[in-house]
């Protein structure tokens, strides 16, 4: 049994798992790397994870980690990895029919995922009225899906401001399917459009069983290694979220390795601006660190022609080497790391290049720390969350900002941030053109260290599977 000690003095465990290897580090409260281990994936990933956990716990029996920061890359490329078939139900009726679900997707992915697809009536109209959800059509759709899909994605026009219609459809589906089929809803994330929310919900649904299995398997391995710490999963932007919140949102972790490696590269080099090259052959790539932050592409990202509702690190990605995961570096970009670095130097000037990952410790400037930068980035990540609102003509700007900030803080606390330390990290304005007013989408991002107390860990009150509130009529 690992001895317990004061929370503040306990190290954090960083665990970075790719298709090639498992890496673990123990990082002390002062940022000192106390131990590290790496194991190649020869058989199963679980074996490699178990091996590195056994090493770091065997060497550090004096104090178990206070938290685990985890980057978890998919078991295989999305195009050929374990995906479930997904039934897609969209509430929107004929007014959204010109762009049906899977619009713009590359066939290689759409054909692997697409189950029954229905666009049915139901939801708000632009004139302020609404149409009741066609529950008969929901039942028809459910009958088509019964026994043919592994998960269901439900989307709806304007569902970010009127989620009750998605809720109503999901309630009926849940009555019909019970808990046997995961149902992922689109209508939670403001700041993105119907297609982006729907695309993300579909891919999340396709990955959700595998995501749950992987996270539970790692939970079992941590218990076996006698590490009872709370697990935080790293998102694509390098920030952390409590694992139970993210298990239904696996798309947000697809690029977590690169996000963590860029953060970790900055930490181990002491630089705030650099090009970070991660040598992991399956999940690494090249990313950018500017002003101490992981540079993201925009507020969305592309995966096999599908635009998703969240950003990934700008750069070259290895997760999907057979296709352009990212809009950031164009498809005709030469894909050798050296060529990409050369291109980034042309674009951004003479930034230092920090190479991290396997094999770096054997180079002239490398060290054990730079070798484990991704795991260090995971171990030291803060929890982050964001909220969106629309402001017109600066009327009530302060009130709108306060409301969005409060919502973002609530989300961050639900995601595992320490309520005592969470703070506003940035407020970004995204103007809306062709309107009569000065219209702006406002994004508030907050972050804070993970809540590490054993006794009163925040309960996740918000489920991404279930309706958020009773339907209001």
């Amino acid at each position, binding site marked *: 049994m690992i001895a317990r000690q004061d929370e503040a003095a306990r190290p954090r465990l960083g665990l970075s798992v790719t298709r090639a290897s498992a890496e673990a580090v123990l990082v002390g409260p002062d940022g000192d790397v106390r131990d590290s281990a790496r194991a190649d994936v020869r058989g199963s990933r679980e074996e490699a994870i178990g091996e590195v956990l056994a090493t770091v716990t065997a060497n550090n029996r004096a104090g178990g980690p206070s938290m685990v920061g985890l980057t978890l890359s998919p078991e295989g490329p999305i195009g050929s990895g374990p995906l479930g078939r997904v039934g897609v139900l969209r509430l*929107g009726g004929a007014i959204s029919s010109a*762009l049906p679900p899977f619009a713009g997707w590359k066939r290689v992915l759409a054909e692997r995922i697409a189950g029954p697809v229905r666009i049915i009536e139901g939801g708000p109209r632009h004139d302020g009225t609404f149409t009741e959800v066609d529950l008969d059509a929901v039942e028809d759709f459910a009958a088509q899906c019964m026994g043919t899909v592994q998960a269901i994605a439900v989307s709806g026009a304007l569902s970010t401001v009127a989620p009750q219609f998605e809720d109503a459809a999901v309630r009926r589906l849940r009555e019909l399917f019970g808990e046997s089929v995961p149902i992922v809803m689109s209508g939670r994330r403001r700041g993105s459009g119907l297609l982006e929310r729907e695309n993300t919900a579909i891919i999340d649904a396709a990955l959700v069983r595998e995501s749950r299995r992987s996270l539970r398997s790692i939970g079992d391995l941590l218990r076996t290694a006698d590490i009872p710490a709370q697990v935080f999963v790293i998102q694509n932007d390098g920030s952390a979220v409590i694992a139970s919140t993210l298990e239904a949102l696996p798309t947000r972790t697809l690029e977590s390795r690169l996000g963590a490696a860029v953060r970790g590269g900055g930490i181990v080099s002491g630089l705030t601006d650099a090009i970070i090259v991660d040598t992991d052959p399956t999940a690494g790539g090249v990313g950018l660190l500017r002003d101490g932050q992981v540079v993201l592409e925009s507020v969305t990202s592309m995966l096999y022609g599908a635009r998703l509702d969240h950003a990934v690190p700008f750069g070259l990605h290895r997760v999907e080497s057979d296709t352009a995961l990212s809009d950031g570096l164009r498809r005709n970009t030469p894909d050798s790391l050296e060529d990409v670095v050369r291109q980034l130097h042309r674009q951004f000037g003479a930034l230092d290049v920090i190479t991290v990952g396997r094999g770096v410790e054997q180079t002239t400037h490398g060290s054990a720390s730079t070798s484990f930068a991704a795991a260090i980035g995971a171990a030291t990540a803060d929890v982050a969350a964001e909220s969106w609102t629309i402001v017109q003509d600066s009327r009530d700007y302060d009130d709108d900002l306060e409301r969005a900030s409060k919502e973002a803080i609530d989300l961050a606390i639900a995601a595992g941030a320490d309520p005592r330390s969470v703070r506003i990290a940035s407020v970004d304005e995204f103007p809306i053109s062709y309107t009569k007013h*000065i219209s702006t989408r406002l994004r508030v991002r907050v972050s804070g260290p993970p809540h590490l107390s054993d006794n009163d860990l925040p309960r996740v009150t918000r489920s991404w599977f279930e309706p958020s509130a009773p339907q209001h009529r």
Partner: protein
Amino acid sequence: MTMVNQEVSEMIIDRTSVEPLSFGAAAMAGGGGGDLYQLRAMLDDLLEDGATAQLVTVDEMSETDEAAPFALIGTPYALSESLLNRAQAPHVFGSAHLRARRPDVIMPYETSGVNLLYPLAVSVALSVPILDADLVGQGALNLDTTILQLDEIDPISFILCDSYLRSVVVTKIGDLSIERSLRPIVTDAMGSIATLSTSSLSQAFLRAHACRGSVSRCLELGELLAAAAGADAEQLQNSLVDVGGRLLESGRISERIASRDAHGARHVVTVAPSRSGGAGLRIELRDKYHLAVQSGLIVASMPDIIVVLSAMTGRPLSTEEAIPGKDVHVIALPSETRWISERGLAMAGPRAAGYNVDYVGFRDAEQVMDG
């Protein structure tokens, strides 16, 4: 399409054209034109199985052929939730309630942003050729700055149709603003986004008035910009020579300030130079980039096309995307020549958008600054 005594055009648009056309359409929009994602997705699907659009010239139409201009009007952001009705375009194109007969050709109202990709998608969906011409030659400042107003000629009617297939036909008699007549209908009654068309236009009308070659110009420009993605400033400047363009500045957007005047929302974007010795740049914009100012001198102005390219991707950024922190190249492209006239500048020059300055051509500005 009858194509009497004409050889069928060999110009086709297929899936490989979508990316360069998107780059070109975004550039020609000069920061306007909306988010292209939805229309790109629609086009990608339509062209998936080897379908193509036939691009024809005005001269390839027969004397009896008619063209229907197509555009989307409203707030592009509304497209993010209202994805259009599959029946909307066929209704506007061929409904007997809206036209005496089905047109033979579709054409872009303006060669700009979604308003190039939308008629192109309709062309593929309805299997009708798309005309290599438009009514502006680039992105329009508003509905009152097309060649219809420049040449003081009106179609018989304007047609609006929303996603519920509700239609409005407006016949203009006298000196009415089309912008002020139509846009409130879309904003207040049609969910902020609608299909815009006009009564069908004859070959004779188009021969006399249309801006010809605008789609192929857009494709050429897009191919150039797509090829230059990832280029440094010097390489980009060299590429722009081929299209008569000029690099104005490279740097990072450091500030964006919004205000409001009689013409509506107005923004000022500041670009801090990335090159030593760079002067930086101030861009005045509303829904498009209108003026570029360097060290107190105007170095480019509307109706020439000011484009802000992402330094990361080479993609033209909309005015909505021009926010602090973005690394950018700012370039200028020449306007359709007909707008560089006394009447054209009165309609589409800086004063038309509420700026108290005269037009300065970026090539003239180059001479002043170099001299």
